[in-house]
């Protein structure tokens, strides 16, 4: 199946998505591919990423998978190099991956899992920004970070997650000011969506889904592809050409404090 490479809101664009092999990352990649982007799924687990890339190719999209542990700067550099080799340029870098432990717990018990969380979010955002910058500057592209409402209102259950997600938002605002003159836009999405991680949380907390739905005006949990993906499409497309330094909360209306 062949498609017009310039068709769609992202026609001709090339996007790299970390954590692109599953969950929200794959949802974003799929939505961007449907709008014409060539997508690179940067996945730590190649066994997730490669079948996902193959499925996208089978659907007529341009997609490839690269193995990438975002805690490794070398892996990030290799992922960007593979993107350039495969598609010629890089217009959108989406840092979605998050690792380490995000298990609920008290601040006093945050030591376990905290280093991995810090590495995959805060350090990886720094590394990704430095690695992607020359290509985004050449393309007039955009940099997108995944954050969370937990970072905006604090979290009784996930203090470590709240801390790193908040910090990524300030990084995005800082970079929007540094990179704006070069035509690079930097934005954030704060999603709530049904992912494998959320399925695990549901199993651990049987009443969690009901509590989440009660606090969500739209009375459903987002779908990674159909609810979160279009927000990424908007922010990385020309529709948002005058939008930078912003966060869009895509959570069904649960958090209104922004």
């Amino acid at each position, binding site marked *: 199946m062949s498609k017009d490479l310039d068709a769609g809101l992202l026609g001709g664009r090339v996007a790299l998505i970390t954590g692109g092999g599953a969950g929200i990352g794959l949802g974003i990649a799929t939505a961007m591919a449907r709008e014409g982007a060539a997508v690179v799924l940067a996945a730590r687990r190649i066994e997730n990423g490669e079948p996902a890339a193959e499925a996208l190719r089978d659907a007529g999209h341009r997609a490839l998978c690269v193995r990438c542990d975002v805690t490794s700067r070398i892996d990030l550099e290799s992922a960007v190099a593979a993107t350039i080799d495969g598609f010629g340029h890089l217009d959108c870098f989406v840092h979605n991956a998050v690792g380490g432990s995000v298990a609920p717990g008290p601040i006093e018990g945050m030591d376990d899992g905290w280093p991995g969380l810090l590495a995959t979010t*805060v350090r990886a955002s720094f590394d990704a*920004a430095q690695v992607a910058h020359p290509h985004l500057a050449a393309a007039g592209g955009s940099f997108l970070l995944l954050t969370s409402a*937990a970072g905006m209102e604090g979290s009784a259950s996930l203090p470590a997650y709240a801390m790193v997600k908040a910090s990524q938002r300030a990084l995005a605002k800082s970079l929007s000011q540094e990179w704006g003159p070069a035509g690079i836009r930097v934005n954030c999405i704060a999603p709530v969506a049904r992912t494998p991680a959320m399925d695990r949380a549901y199993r651990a907390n049987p009443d969690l889904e009901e509590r989440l739905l009660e606090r969500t005006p739209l009375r459903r949990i987002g779908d990674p592809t159909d609810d979160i993906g279009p927000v990424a499409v908007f922010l990385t497309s020309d529709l948002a050409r005058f939008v930078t330094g912003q966060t869009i909360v895509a959570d069904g209306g649960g958090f209104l404090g922004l």
Partner: protein
Amino acid sequence: MGTRTLVCGAGGLYDELVARLRARGHLVETLGLSSLAARPTAETAVDTAAAALGTVDLLVHVLESPGQPIPLVDLSTDDWVAVCEDPMVGALHLLQACRPHLGPGSRVVHVVPTSAMGGAPGFAATATAAEGIRALNKSAARQWGTDGITTAVVAAAPELLIGPAASSSGGALSGPALGRTGGAEDLAGIIDTLASPDAAFTSGSTIVADGGTWMAP
């Protein structure tokens, strides 16, 4: 007896804040940043300071990060770690170490630049750390509130905590309504007020103390 206050930080504003709080009658013990590098050293240092105070009514952690602007793309990884990650880890260790010494009526205050909310070109590492610490403060408020412990963030002008080169940062469209960015005495008064029982029903909130520059939300 005055408020028993533990102040942690380093730098000119930190020194002035300590002096101003003492002048206001606080019994102050101080803690250097080096002890926060690891949890055990933080616990030892905090235990010693808390023993000298008797208990901790007020914990003040000042995120002071003076420097010149460096574009993020030119920042070394070592500098990123020193300016962004180490202060976040240190803030966590300080809270963990202080928790056993906090009880009903205790107040935790983090002093950060308003760059946390608005970002800071040339100072992205500081802004990133500051917003992370602001979220940690909120989470502490949510976890410890039922024990009677309250928290607050005092967000000061970037000029005070970073330096004059940070004056144009923050995403605000206007300068300070009061015509000045303030100083240690302005902050000490607000921190002193936050330690009062009259302020005890606010927790996890950010008090912007920048002379009326940042008014959102």
